[in-house]
């Protein structure tokens, strides 16, 4: 499993000491807020509506039991006993006090964790596939590439003060579970004509107020060229990206305004003339990193053990959970089990310290001491033997996290919204809760089938509403919360931006509106196998528009 090397340990320890000194100087007044703000942001510390907020990195969403226990310990010692897992595979604490943050960072460092690159205009923590190293169709574990990029980007002198934040995502599978098409740079591990492994490089995707689907910059990049090539991209962006207007400063705007072909010419020119050898990873480095991500040695087991099959028959709730929340594993007899952090009426992505410890116990006992955080705000136990699955399920039921709803209508992504966030214009969490309660019935959810609802409490789109099958964007209209609905968004290799349905709806109207949209889909679908997205793509916006606005005319 991923671990620090000696350099990383020293780097993080030094950063903690440096930040402790900066906090002390802030508290004594030697630094004012204007001077301190960029320093705290470099260490993941925001100031939100009710309190400071600390965003902790979980590189590639991978963590072990000891690390999860530390997250629980921090929640109880310095926060209010819980944390919020985010759409970038991180965790946020909502209530830390400034004076305690150096202690929190020091505690994190003892388990090889930190809050570096979780904020500010730098290359942010790189995200990846929660099923990395597990998915049968995967070409190569994407975390190896992500870690190489992390080592290259941390404290990169040229890219520490970019015009705006910069996000990478890497997938090793054709089926994209990392939403690479809505990242500044999306990297897909692919095979070349001779079967050699390399990269497909996408650029200029993103959400926020100007959503864009990334465009292909290179169909195939030899593996060894990765660092010089992304350095060339960053150089072109750093040189030509706008700095006069933060809303136009992301690379997606530069790519859009330059045009992908002209942008590609600039990148290729830089790539051709730069000192590539100075940037290329030293020989053997990829192998060294790969060893950190070496797959656990799992012994093949029966694909349908008798006891497992019997429990599915005896406990139909378990059978439903298995059907929805487990995914194929490359080793026969194992699955990746998704722990839904979306219990009916719950706060999407929140987990209490007790729940974190219980998940750590389950990971240690039944998943080779490994967990993954997903960009859908759930947790994955990546290596569970089928024979252990019922014990895992019972363990989750004991902490209220046995919802069999992965990918269903109640598996809602929601940003913290106006309940926590200083930027928000409307609430997100209670909207998610109301919709979740409306669709509480498992039977009904299964009847509806795969359907993603994603909710953002402002135009910055942290709740990924642009790529929800149903997207909800909360705005403020003359002091009243108003929610715009988009339909047809998608986050995978088939990514699309949702299209606006029409005028927005009031807070109280939302559960009815969403239910109506779902009912229209159920009426229009050609059989149970046609998903919401497929139906929408076949029939378009009109039937939904008609049904929702006809009575209002």
């Amino acid at each position, binding site marked *: 499993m991923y671990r620090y090397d000696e350099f990383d340990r020293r780097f993080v320890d030094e950063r903690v000491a440096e930040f402790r000194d900066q906090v002390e100087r802030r508290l004594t007044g030697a630094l004012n*807020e204007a001077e301190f703000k960029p320093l705290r942001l470099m260490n993941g510390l925001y*100031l939100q509506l009710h309190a400071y907020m600390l965003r902790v990195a979980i590189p590639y969403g991978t963590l072990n039991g000891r690390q999860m226990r530390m997250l629980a310990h921090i929640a109880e010692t310095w926060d209010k006993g819980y944390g919020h897992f985010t759409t970038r595979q991180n965790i946020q604490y909502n209530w*830390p006090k*400034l004076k305690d943050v150096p202690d929190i960072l020091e505690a994190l460092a003892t388990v090889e964790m930190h809050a570096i690159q979780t904020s500010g205009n730098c290359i942010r923590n790189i995200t990846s596939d929660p099923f990395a190293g597990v998915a049968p169709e995967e070409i190569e574990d994407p975390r190896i590439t992500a870690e190489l990029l992390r080592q290259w980007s941390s404290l990169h002198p040229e890219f520490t003060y970019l015009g705006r934040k910069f996000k990478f995502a890497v997938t090793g599978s054709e089926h994209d579970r990392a939403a690479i098409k809505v990242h500044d740079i999306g990297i897909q591990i692919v095979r070349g004509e001779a079967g050699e492994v390399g990269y497909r490089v996408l650029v200029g995707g993103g959400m926020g107020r100007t959503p864009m689907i990334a465009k292909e910059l290179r169909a195939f990049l030899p593996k060894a060229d990765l660092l010089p090539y992304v350095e060339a991209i960053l150089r072109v962006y750093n040189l030509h990206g706008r700095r006069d207007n933060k809303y136009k400063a992301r690379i997606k705007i530069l790519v859009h305004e330059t045009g992908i072909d002209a942008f590609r010419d600039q990148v290729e020119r830089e790539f051709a003339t730069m000192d590539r050898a100075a940037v290329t990873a030293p020989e053997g480095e990829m192998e060294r990193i790969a060893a950190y991500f070496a797959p656990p040695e799992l012994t093949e087991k029966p694909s349908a053990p008798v006891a497992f099959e019997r429990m599915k028959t005896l406990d139909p709730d378990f059978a439903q959970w298995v059907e929805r929340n487990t995914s194929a594993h490359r080793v026969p007899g194992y699955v990746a089990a998704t722990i839904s952090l979306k219990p009916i009426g719950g706060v999407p992505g*929140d987990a*209490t310290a007790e729940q974190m410890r219980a998940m750590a116990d389950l990971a240690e006992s039944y998943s080779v001491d490994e967990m993954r955080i997903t960009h859908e705000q759930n947790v994955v136990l990546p290596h569970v033997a089928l024979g252990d699955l019922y014990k895992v399920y019972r363990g989750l039921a004991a902490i209220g996290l046995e919802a069999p709803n992965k990918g269903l209508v109640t598996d809602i992504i929601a940003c913290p919204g106006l*309940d926590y966030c200083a930027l928000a214009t409307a609430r997100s969490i209670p909207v998610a*809760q109301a919709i979740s309660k409306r669709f509480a019935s498992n039977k009904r959810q299964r009847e509806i089938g795969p359907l993603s609802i994603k909710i953002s409490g402002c135009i910055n789109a942290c709740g990924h509403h642009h790529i929800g099958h149903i997207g909800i964007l909360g705005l403020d209209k003359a002091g009243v919360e108003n929610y715009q609905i988009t339909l047809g968004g998608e986050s995978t290799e088939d990514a699309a931006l949702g299209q606006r349905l029409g005028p927005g709806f009031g807070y109280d109207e939302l559960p009815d509106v969403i239910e109506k949209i779902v009912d229209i889909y159920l009426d229009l679908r050609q059989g149970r196998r046609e998903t919401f997205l497929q139906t929408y793509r076949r029939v378009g916006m009109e039937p939904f528009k008609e049904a929702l606005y006809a009575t209002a005319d």
Partner: protein
Amino acid sequence: MAKEFKPSVVTANDLIEGDSVFLGALGWVRDIAEARVALSRDEAEVLEADGVAGEDANIVVGPYLIEVSVATGRPVPVLRRERIRVSGVPTIPFGVAAPAERRAA
């Protein structure tokens, strides 16, 4: 035409704790009921300047004026965002309270 003036108080985040505070008669307070209320533009200017002084003195971060209604005697922010800030907590049960409430439901 200039916007109609509404009674206002100054709010900010406490430097150390990070929570919402309000400028009162004798300094920064956590209960908006104890906040100084500006009833004219001139008073608001003075209040705002006192807020900035609090930031300069490293007591608070990001002071700004918020409009309030004083109909009930206790200042109540006009904007929902500020009403949520004044409450000091989210509008929903959170943390350890959240799952317990769901189980009871």
